[in-house]
């Protein structure tokens, strides 16, 4: 193999260049033959833009091949896949897509590369602060946002207009509108407000939003649970009350995003809490609610602000054990760049993490909801940013679920939840 020394010679200046260039900048490739493995969830939408993007990256980096491997659909299984492979030693991938709630955990475990030296401040500032925040742990940046989500209140524009209502700013107003519209329509199959109350991460998100809507938090600044206990109690009682009063059907206690999206899409509900992806589906040509759906910030309870909606989304991170550090960082920068996010927004049912794209004329022409989403994305709130978020969530989910189905009083659930979280924290603090 006569080419081998030549390849090494080529690599040295490249590495030097990479070290000095340091960051999300454009760089010419080398002749080295390298395969990068990129793990990600399947991208849904009209046209998957990813293969095109990866070919573009390869064209800029001759000799580099990006192998894109899809993860299983469920978020729990993705997490399990990563944990087993990363904890086991040498993971078979270089760049990975992470649910933003995992970033602090993976950073703490030392599984992902510190991206701070590679990402200039201007690049960091080009994303929503609410998207960057969850990727920061110990003052360092561990991942770059790829796309972004935020909780929205969907409402039936036609029904609200018919009764002279504007989108509700408080949950009291929402409940009153539901009663008035249902009484007026006289349709027993028309439900009021649909949300996700199943015992899973999505249910946790809905409970957190109810806490925030009343000015309560899950953790205080030093990580103690339920600092505003009375307000938290009110929030939980409110959620249960939605079901007891019939504003929400009892089955929301087993509902996830899709189970609530479908009836609303069939025109059988007035309000829905869901992520932005549902909007694309409601506007499909054969949708029964096409042109009849509006989006608004989530309402508030007595003590909280309007629009305290949870953020969601995916970040890209680099495995700490990758053998192609520079290239993997390059790929991460490339895929989160403005050009790539533009392509993702055009082809897939995803929303970018860069505010600039929400007012981009070409994109807005394709998707007129973007400017309205901008403000909602900016106001979005991250779930508690802590390495033990998943532990916390899994521990508390059965307690919250017990309140929603009426098995426990809010008081009891908060007390039991606090005891369990404290037990958990004792075990993990040496």
């Amino acid at each position: 193999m006569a080419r081998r020394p030549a390849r090494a010679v080529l690599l040295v200046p490249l590495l030097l260049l990479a070290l000095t260039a340091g960051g999300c900048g454009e760089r010419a490739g080398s002749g080295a033959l390298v395969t990068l493995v990129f793990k990600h969830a399947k991208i849904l939408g009209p046209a998957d833009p990813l293969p095109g993007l990866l070919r573009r990256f390869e064209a800029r980096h001759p000799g580099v091949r990006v192998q894109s491997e899809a993860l299983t659909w469920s978020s729990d299984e993705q997490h399990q896949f990563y944990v087993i492979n990363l904890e086991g030693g040498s993971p078979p991938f270089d760049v990975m897509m992470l649910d933003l709630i995992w970033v602090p955990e993976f950073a703490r475990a030392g599984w992902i590369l510190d991206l701070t030296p590679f990402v200039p401040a201007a690049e960091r500032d080009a994303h929503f602060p609410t998207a960057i925040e969850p990727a920061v742990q110990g003052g360092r940046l561990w991942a770059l946002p790829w796309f972004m989500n935020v909780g929205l209140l969907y409402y039936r524009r036609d029904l609200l207009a018919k009764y002279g209502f504007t989108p509700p700013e408080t949950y009291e107003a929402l409940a009153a509108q539901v009663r008035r519209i249902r009484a007026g329509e006289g349709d027993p199959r028309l439900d009021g407000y649909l949300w996700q109350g199943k015992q899973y991460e999505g249910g946790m998100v809905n409970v957190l939003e109810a806490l925030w809507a009343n000015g309560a938090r899950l953790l205080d600044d030093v990580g103690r649970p339920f600092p505003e206990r009375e307000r938290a109690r009110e929030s939980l009682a409110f959620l249960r009350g939605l079901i007891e009063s019939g504003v929400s059907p009892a089955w929301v206690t087993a509902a996830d995003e899709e189970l609530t999206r479908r009836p609303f899409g069939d025109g059988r509900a007035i309000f829905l809490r869901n992520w932005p992806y549902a909007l694309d589906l409601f506007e499909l040509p054969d949708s029964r609610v096409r042109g009849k759906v509006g989006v608004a910030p989530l309402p508030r309870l007595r003590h909280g602000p309007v629009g305290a909606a949870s953020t969601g989304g995916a970040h890209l991170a680099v495995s700490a054990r990758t053998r192609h550090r520079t290239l993997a960082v390059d790929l991460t920068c490339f895929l989160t760049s403005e050009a790539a996010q533009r392509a993702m927004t055009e082809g897939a049912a995803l929303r970018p993490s860069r505010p600039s794209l929400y007012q981009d004329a070409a994109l807005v022409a394709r998707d007129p909801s973007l400017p309205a989403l901008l403000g909602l994305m900016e106001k979005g709130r991250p779930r508690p940013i802590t390495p033990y978020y998943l532990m916390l969530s899994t521990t508390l989910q059965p307690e919250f679920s017990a309140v929603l189905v009426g098995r426990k009083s809010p008081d009891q659930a908060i007390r039991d939840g606090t005891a369990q979280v404290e037990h958990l924290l004792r075990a993990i603090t040496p």
Partner: protein
Amino acid sequence: MTDHRLAWILLAPALAVLGGLTVYPALWVLWLSFQYRVPVFSISRWAGLDHYAFLAVDTRFWNAAWVTGVFTGCSVALECGLGLAMALALRGQSRGRRVALALLLLAWALPSVVTAKMFEWLYHPAGGLVNFLVGGRTINWLGDPDLALPALIAADVWRATPFVTLLCFARLLTIPADLYEAAQVDGAAGLQAFARITWPLVRPILLVALLFRTLDALRAFDIMFVLTGGGPAGATETLTVYAYRALFQTLQMGFGSAIGVVVFAFVMVVAVAYLWVINRQDQTA
């Protein structure tokens, strides 16, 4: 070379494989269960029996044990009863047997996650087929803590009954027809023929089916994980779901292993009890 030594040499590959694939991991899990081991927080210290002591008073654990027991008892009893009944019905059927068998296999051949997803829509309170069939009422199957477990048992019965049916049906085919003819000549028909001929001959295979299904049901995971996530209010959280949450969602390797060890112990006790019954049968038969 003595026969004895040869026997060991011939056994060695099997023992090595079993040892490497079963005994070693099992011992490793047991070892982990005596530790605080949370890799994310670089925690690795001796816990002794702490995890087991916590489990003894952990209401979530006892709830999961109860749910596992109810799920196993009900689903296995129904599966074996229905499975045997369907096998008998199949034997009596002359036309369309192949189609019936193919349809039965379909349910068994579906991955259980697919089955679970399908039932998710069947049970949908607003648009699900089940509620349509019971007269358009909106019964909250998966969201009501009292109904969720029965709903999951029904789904599991739908999925696993064909397995029992096929085993029993295969056994029924091997019972010579002249046995029944002779019985008829002697004046024994119907129930009597079933009690004297069919039942004693099917019973051993039914016990094997019972053993398989019980061990499966004790480790039930996919159906509840997909359909309810263990909710509502933990009403469908089995021991394996709890262990999964501890191990792979919250990464408490030590604590999760302790749950795993307890599940293993339960399963072993049941398996040994069954084997004892089966052995005794063989001896008396």
